[in-house]
Structures are given as structure tokens and as C-alpha cells.
């Protein structure tokens, strides 16, 4: 599931963003499609000699981003988790356990990964194929940088800029249209049925923070377990969060009904007041274009409760 993967990614990203504060800045003329181009990603400066036409994406988020900025037709193969948008060239490649040879089979001219297993980058470097490493974004700004980087690398910088501008607008308008919840409104965000959660410091936590919500997990320390602490059940009960967000429906079939059925949980006000929101695991675990859908769902829930 996602917690481990995200937390690994976050750690890597924190390191990455310290070293490369301007990840994804295009080296070529802005808006132009001139190659060669040098972009900065978490793995340093990456030079792409000519417009790639055989991209292999081992990151479900990057796949969504590539299609969103108009580079979809250049994508030759994606990993088995890249299930969106429809019609992606899915393969059995697994972004979390790959070997260089399996990727080389597709003769890629650009590889995008969100997870960098030891030695993979070094092996791919021997194949002389440029690799962009875009790990899980720590916040929206980092995600926007990743768009721009991918845009420059694929000759779609303009598309990327448009997409980023669009996302900014949508996020702002959702936040503006949503009434601020009363101070002290909290949520428990469930990553899996053993109570792994997110703090307000994570990508998801920051997104929900835009709507004025705070995670109960913050009490464990915002950076506890990389922002993804496992909470104790009795703490969740005592914290009595206003909302419960379930990001473990897809993996583990958690629903408002199963949550209410947990021993002792019926005493929670979120259960009594039907403030349990089931989120799509896929959207919730990615930092791509569909985050606005998730944001809208939560915003609708806030409006429903207050309106």
C-alpha cells in the first residue's frame, strides 16, 4: 500500500529539494521546444538530447502529468500502476522493483521514475538513457515544478505551464468557495486499517490544510515517521476528530459502515454525524492533476455540513 512508499518518497524528496531547490527549471528558452535541454530533477541535472518519442514512465503520477500536459502520444510504456488516464500503454513493469534490462527492452529515450531503488539510476546511466526522478511531492509547489520539468523535457513546456496555471486557479477557487470550518476542526486520515495516518505536514495534510482542517496525527509530531505515523486506536477515539477520511477503500475495503462497526468507534462524533469521506486510493496517493477532484470532494463535504 501507499504509506510506506510515500514516506520513503517524502524522505527522498526532502533530501532532494534541499540539494536542488529549483527542481524542474527548464534550461532552454521559455516556451520553446528547442533541444537539447537540461532539466533539474531530484537526481540532479538531466540533459535530453532531442525531443523524446519513447518515454517509459514508472510513476503513476508522472504518467498522469505527462498526459495532462499533452505528452501522452510520446509515452511508449508505463508501469502496471499507471492506470489513468484510460488507454495508457500499461506493461507489467513495477516501479518498485525493476531492473534496467526490463526497461531497456522498450528502447526508451526518456525514463521517469518516482522511486529510485539502489543502483537503478546508475545502471540506467550506463544505458545512456536520461532518467528524471520525480519522487512524491512534499507540497503543491514541488508538484508544479515537476510539471514544468516534465514539460521542458518532453517539449511541452507550454502545456505544462497551462496545466499549472489551471490547477492554481481551480485550487484557489475551491478554497475561496468553501466556508472556513470552525477553529479546531480536525480530521483523521486513514491510510490503512492499522491506523497509519498523515500529519498536516505531508502533501495531503497541506492540501487539506488549505481548507482549514488539521490532522489529529500532528500530536505525534508533524514529522513523526516522515509524517506518516501509526496512531493508537485509543488516541483516535480520544481525539474524536470532526472528520474521517478513508484512503484505504481500494486496498482494504474500508467504508463508513466498516468504520462504524469497529469496536468503540460508534462513539465518535464523525461516525454519529456521518462525517466519513471515502476517497479514491489512487487519487489520494498521487500528486498529479486529479488532486483537485479530491479537494473538491472534501470541500463539498465541508459545505454540506455547514450549509
Amino acid at each position, binding site marked *: *500500500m*501507499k*504509506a*510506506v*512508499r510515500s514516506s520513503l518518497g517524502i524522505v527522498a524528496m526532502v533530501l532532494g529539494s534541499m540539494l536542488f531547490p529549483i527542481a524542474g527549471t527548464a534550461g532552454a528558452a521559455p516556451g520553446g521546444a528547442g533541444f537539447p535541454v537540461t532539466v533539474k530533477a531530484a537526481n540532479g541535472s538531466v540533459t535530453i538530447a532531442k525531443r523524446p518519442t519513447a518515454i517509459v514512465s514508472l510513476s503513476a503520477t508522472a504518467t498522469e502529468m505527462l498526459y495532462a500536459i499533452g505528452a501522452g502520444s510520446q509515452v511508449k510504456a508505463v508501469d502496471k*500502476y499507471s492506470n489513468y488516464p484510460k488507454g495508457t500503454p500499461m506493461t507489467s513493469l*513495477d516501479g*518498485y*522493483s525493476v531492473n534496467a534490462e526490463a526497461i531497456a527492452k522498450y528502447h526508451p529515450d526518456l525514463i521517469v521514475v518516482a522511486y529510485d531503488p539502489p543502483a537503478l539510476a546508475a545502471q540506467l546511466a550506463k544505458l545512456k538513457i536520461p532518467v528524471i526522478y520525480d519522487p512524491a511531492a512534499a507540497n503543491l509547489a514541488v508538484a508544479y515544478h515537476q510539471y514544468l520539468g516534465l514539460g521542458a523535457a518532453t517539449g511541452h513546456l507550454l502545456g505544462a505551464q497551462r496545466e499549472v496555471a489551471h490547477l492554481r486557479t481551480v485550487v484557489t477557487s475551491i478554497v475561496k468557495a468553501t466556508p472556513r470550518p470552525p477553529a479546531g476542526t480536525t480530521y483523521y486520515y486513514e*491510510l*490503512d*486499517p*492499522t*491506523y*497509519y495516518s498523515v500529519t498536516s505536514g505531508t502533501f495531503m495534510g497541506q492540501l487539506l490544510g488549505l481548507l482549514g482542517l488539521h490532522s489529529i*496525527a500532528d*500530536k*505525534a*509530531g508533524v514529522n*513523526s*515517521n516522515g509524517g506518516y*505515523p*501509526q*496512531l*493508537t*486506536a*485509543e*488516541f483516535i*477515539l*480520544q*481525539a*474524536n476528530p470532526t472528520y474521517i477520511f478513508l484512503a484505504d477503500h481500494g*486496498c*482494504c*475495503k474500508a467504508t463508513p459502515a466498516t468504520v462504524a462497526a*469497529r*469496536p*468503540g*468507534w*460508534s*462513539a*465518535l462524533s464523525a461516525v454519529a454525524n456521518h462525517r466519513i469521506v471515502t476517497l479514491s486510493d489512487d487519487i489520494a496517493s498521487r500528486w498529479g492533476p486529479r488532486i483537485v477532484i479530491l479537494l473538491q470532494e472534501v470541500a463539498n463535504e465541508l459545505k454540506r455540513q455547514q450549509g
Partner: protein
Amino acid sequence: MTAVRSTAPDAVAAPAPVSAKRPVLIAVVVLIAVALLATAIGPADLSLTTVLQVLASHLPWWHPHGTVTPIDQAIVWEIRLPRVVLGGLVGSMLAAGGASYQGVFRNPLADPYLLGVAAGAGLGATVAIISSSRSMYLLPAAAFVGGALAVTLTYLVGSRATTHSSGSSIVLAGVAIAAVFTALQTNLQQQHAADLQPVYSWILGSLSTASWSDVGLIAPYVLISAVVLLAHRRLLDVLRVGEEEAAALGVHPQRVRLAVVAAATLGTAAAVSVSGLIGFVGIIVPHVVRLTTNASYRVVLPVSMISGASFLILADLGARMLDAPAEVPLGVVTAFIGGPFFIFVLRSRRSHQGVL
């Protein structure tokens, strides 16, 4: 032939028989204290009065007025108490299983995982999660089946290996079976890397989602296992003189071993199926008991069972409290408390005489 029976007994005062009474009594007192402590303390910091009120409200003849909020009520009765009870059951099984395995294989490092219980249960859990979307509910059953399967295979392979089945050939078979199962599990995990966070956290071992239904689920197995193991406590002492002498004393060592291994595996697999793989309890608790009491299994077995419960309840209290409100993996805590304590006990005793 006169007098095989003619020994005049009256003249001689019998030395005190191996008495389990005092050590058992002490262990029970410790267990009660630990259980009360673990029920009183938790990340949700409730007052002792609240906890006592909740506990009292479940006494059949007590009907207090509702001064406790439903949430506090739920925290104590639905979350904290089942966790303490489940921790006790799991700990007692792991410790009793360890003591029993060490007895039948006469190997001080034998523990419930030796014959492949852990590897089998891990594979079972992994298969369940990969093959079913309702995995979280099937996981305990699958882990149980996997653990029992691995031990059965170990036994078949081990007893085929030599005609006169010796303890060591079965232990070796266990190592081999465990290696194969672990390889299969790792391979599956690799292939389904993104789906396996539940397996990962299960393997680490945790009582974080303990409920009364978990308690109800394993209680029957724990009960059967405990009764069978305790009933064998004297025969475990007989096995300490080795296969051949045990046979000369009228015992079938293989049968005893099979019965004990079956019971210990049943209990361990049941415990592991709800708690995940919690290491160390099965080795450390019996050895500490052995070093601090008389080494007879009549004492070691019941006292290990009770102390195992205390140990795990205490370790789980650590798991809940050390980084509250976040959890610390239980396996980490058991190793952290257990390791140094074990070293302390070993060093403070003259242990050159061997521990079995």
C-alpha cells in the same frame, strides 16, 4: 524375589517435591499488577477514576450513574482492555511454545518460529492479501493455515530424513522449509510491492487493532494448546534425559514430541495470526524463568506461560506509550526490553552449566 516394594518408606522424610506453587503465585501477582497498570495507562490519558468506573460498570451487580462519556467508555472497554487481554494471550502462547520447543528438541535456541511457523504464516498472510480484496479479514486464517502447513511439511521432511527420527533432523528440516517459504513470500512481495503494506506491518507485529473478537477468535486455540502443553510438563522433564533413556522409561519420545509440537504450533499459529510476528518472547521468557527458578518443566512451563503474558503486556504498553500517540512496532520494543534484560540475567548467573 522379595521385595521390590519392600523399601521401608516411613523412616524417610520426602524432600519437598518440585513445587510450582510459589513461583506460579509470584508470576500471577506480577501478571495482575502488570495488567492493571497497562489498563490504567494509555495514550488517551484518562484518570484512574474513569478507568475504574468503566471497569466497575461491567460488573454485573454494579450500575453506576453515567458520569463517563461514551468515548472514554469505549477507549477503556473496547480498545485498551482487549489489547491488554490479547497481548496476554499472545505472550503466554509464544513463551509456552518456546519453552516446549526447547524441551522437545533439547535446543536452547528453539523457538516457536524454528519449525517454520513464522515463515509459513508470513506466506499465508501474503497470499491472502494478494488474492483477495477482503484480505484484512482473511489474513488471520491464512496466516494460521500457512504456519500449520509449514510445520506439517517440516515434520514430514524431518522424520523421513532419518529412520530414527532425531530432534536435530527435524530442526534442520525446519530451517530448510522456512527458507523456502520465506523465499516464496519475498518473491510474492516483490511482485506485488504496492499492495503489501498490510503484510509489512503484520510482519512487524502489532496489537494495534486488537478487539474482543480477536480475543474470541484465538481463545479456544490458546486454551487447548495451554492445557495440552501443561499436561505434558512432566514428560518434557523425562525427555531431558534423551530419546533412548526416555524410551527405556516407558515413553515414546516421538509421540510426545509430536503431541507437544502440534499443541505448541496450534497455539503459536493462532497467536501469530492476530498479532503478527513478534520475535524474542519465545526465547527470552523461558530462559529467564529457567535461570531464576528451578529448571524443571513443571515449573518452567506454567511460569513461562504466565510471565510471557506479563512480558508482552508490558512491551505493548511500551509500544503504545513510548512515542504516544504514535505506535512503536511491538517487535522493536520486545527486542529492546528483552535483549538487555536477557544479557543482564545471563551475566548475573553462573551460566556455565548450560541452561537445559
